[in-house]
């Protein structure tokens, strides 16, 4: 078995990283894989589309927020750079539309007041138990990091290629697929009452009834008001909610990679120069000169 050193090193690196991709595969899948959609934030130059995030926010606000909280986001985040790009004034006005709990006041009571920029998005239910009671025992998960908390198994060798293609959008692809994936239950399958059949949800029985349908939400910018559009926009919004600094991360990444490649190149030639004498005249090596 003979292999040049470089190939061996490549083998070792590739092998180790193949190994490293494994925990993501822990789940078995017995249904179709979510289709890979095109996202503006995918790839090394990816960034969020503010228009899409604003549409996604509208969908969240009008539909999802009735059951799903967004606990880790504040109203001020809507005006942060690299996001939906609302102005500070718009975000402030949006915030004041909400009623936020505050207190206790001097009488010892809690009271409600209009939201401010610094406030977090209020949750639809007071606690988990109230949420379950209103949803047939199922707990609608908080959506702050949902897009990073969901994925699907890619299988070998795709999970190896994913390192190089930078495929990190499993979450939004999965969420969009679930939103579009409601269908008639196959006759052979038994499902508990109150559950809904979904092609992409693990186990195929999901507690949430189809939340979105055509013409449910109207958009100001003329985007199509159909399920396909809604599922894409809200998934993009959820990705932003989970990873608000993605644009800045990839931008800094480009600068760092360019810098490191330049540095590595310089160090390579420096190494060659330093070693030139030793390599050229190996027999002349005396006192560690």
């Amino acid at each position, binding site marked *: 078995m*003979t292999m040049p050193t470089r190939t061996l090193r490549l083998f070792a690196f590739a092998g180790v990283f193949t190994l*490293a991709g494994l*925990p993501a595969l822990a789940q078995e899948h017995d249904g179709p894989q979510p289709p890979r959609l095109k996202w503006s934030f995918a790839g090394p130059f990816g960034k969020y589309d503010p228009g899409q995030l604003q549409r996604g926010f509208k969908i969240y606000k009008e539909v999802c927020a009735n059951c799903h909280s967004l606990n880790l986001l504040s109203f001020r985040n809507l005006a942060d750079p690299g996001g939906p790009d609302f102005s500070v004034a718009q975000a402030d006005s949006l915030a004041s539309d909400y009623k936020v709990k505050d207190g206790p006041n001097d009488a010892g009571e809690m009271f409600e007041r209009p939201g401010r920029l610094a406030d977090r998005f209020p949750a639809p239910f007071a606690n988990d138990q109230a949420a379950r009671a209103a949803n047939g025992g199922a707990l609608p998960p908080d959506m702050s990091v949902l897009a990073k908390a969901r994925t699907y198994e890619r299988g070998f060798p795709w999970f190896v290629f994913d390192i190089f293609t930078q495929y990190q959008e499993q979450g939004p692809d999965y969420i969009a697929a679930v939103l579009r994936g409601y269908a008639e239950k196959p006759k052979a399958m038994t499902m508990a009452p109150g559950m809904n059949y979904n092609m992409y949800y*693990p186990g195929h029985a999901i507690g949430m009834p189809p939340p979105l349908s055509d013409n449910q939400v109207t958009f100001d910018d003329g985007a199509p008001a159909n399920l396909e559009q809604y599922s894409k926009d809200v998934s993009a919004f959820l990705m932003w909610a989970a990873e608000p600094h993605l644009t800045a*991360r990839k931008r*800094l990444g480009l600068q760092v990679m360019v810098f490191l490649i330049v540095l590595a190149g310089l160090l390579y030639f420096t*190494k060659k120069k330093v070693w030139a004498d030793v390599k050229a005249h190996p027999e002349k090596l005396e006192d560690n000169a």
Partner: protein
Amino acid sequence: MSGHSTYQPQGAFMKWLERRLPIAGLMHSSFVAYPTPRNLNYWWTFGGILSFMLGVQIITGVVLAMHYTAHADMAFNSVETIMRDVNYGWLLRYLHSNGASMFFVAVYIHMFRGMYYGSYKEPREVLWILGVILYLLMMATGFLGYTLPWGQMSYWGATVITNFFSAFPLIGDPLVMLLWGGYAVGNPTLNRFYSLHYLLPFVIAGVVVLHIWALHVVGQNNPTGVDPKSAKDTVAFTPYATVKDSFLMAVFCIVFAWFVFYVPNYLGHADNYIPANPAVTPQHIVPEWYYLPFYAILRAIPNKLLGVCALFGSILILAFLPWLDTSRVRSGRYRPLFKQFFWLFVVCCLGLGWLGAKPPEGVYVIAARILTIYYFAYFIVVLPLLGIFEKTRPVPNSIAEAVLVGDVPLGASAPPLRHG
């Protein structure tokens, strides 16, 4: 390798200091003038890379600790605060989490290098054993750190790993409760794990000092396995080894940066973005990738106690490597049969790693058992026997001779060398 120091302090202050605390002289003789074999290849740069990564982890860790809250009710949200609100918090967090993975990539390459070139053989046994201790400390530190975000995998991984100790008869259950500080993994567990996670890297740093000291007493191994015999065999550490280490460190950082900036969650698990829920176990509990081979070994054995023993045994057996390998020839370069078993061992480890992520059912269990048998057989059967029966290639008389004849590519047959 110690002669009298060639260091000459420059300037009045350095002369004054050197007489009282000769640290500059120590640095000079250890990392500047230190004679290094001239034929080291790039596999030898990973020791320096490991020291660099330890520094990265400690610095990013200390800085993250300024914002993290180690309380079961607040830990998950404090990590999200770091990701969202702290200036560059997202960068520091991803550096630390991916840094841990890169740390393990480097350590596995470093260990496989040692196994291939016989760097564990006499007189480097203590060096090797210190390395095994460092590896164990790294595994402990990584495990403790992974629990801190208090996600589903953090919580349940902690539950599974601490439950290992219940396998021991009599003392098992009280021991587990001692570790937990309660009746299950909970807030007391998180707090003590945080304390230990902060402590262990500094223990690692201390053992690294011993590791480098042990190395410098006996000197580096090299691809020929032949010790340096004269000044013709070595070059000064600075600039020759320094610049080589720096170059590969930059390349390593490119890979590191690729993960941090473009695929920061690839090496992690999506379930750890779900806050810990003691009432719901994830469908498949998986440890971080660097523990997967040992996880596969554990699950391959159907008996609970024996599985735990096999798990710990698979790591501890490394410490006996210097005595299990009976070959008189040090470097794998001149051991053609050993080479094949070695690469098979590498493939075996990768295979076990893949199986560690699979559910323990059907063909996966059978495969894991076969690979576990090979894993242990490599140490207990193959290496001892190879040393006795293998026909090795002729070893060069010196490093300089090997270099003069022409740098022998790994695996190619060496041209016949003159005797004497």
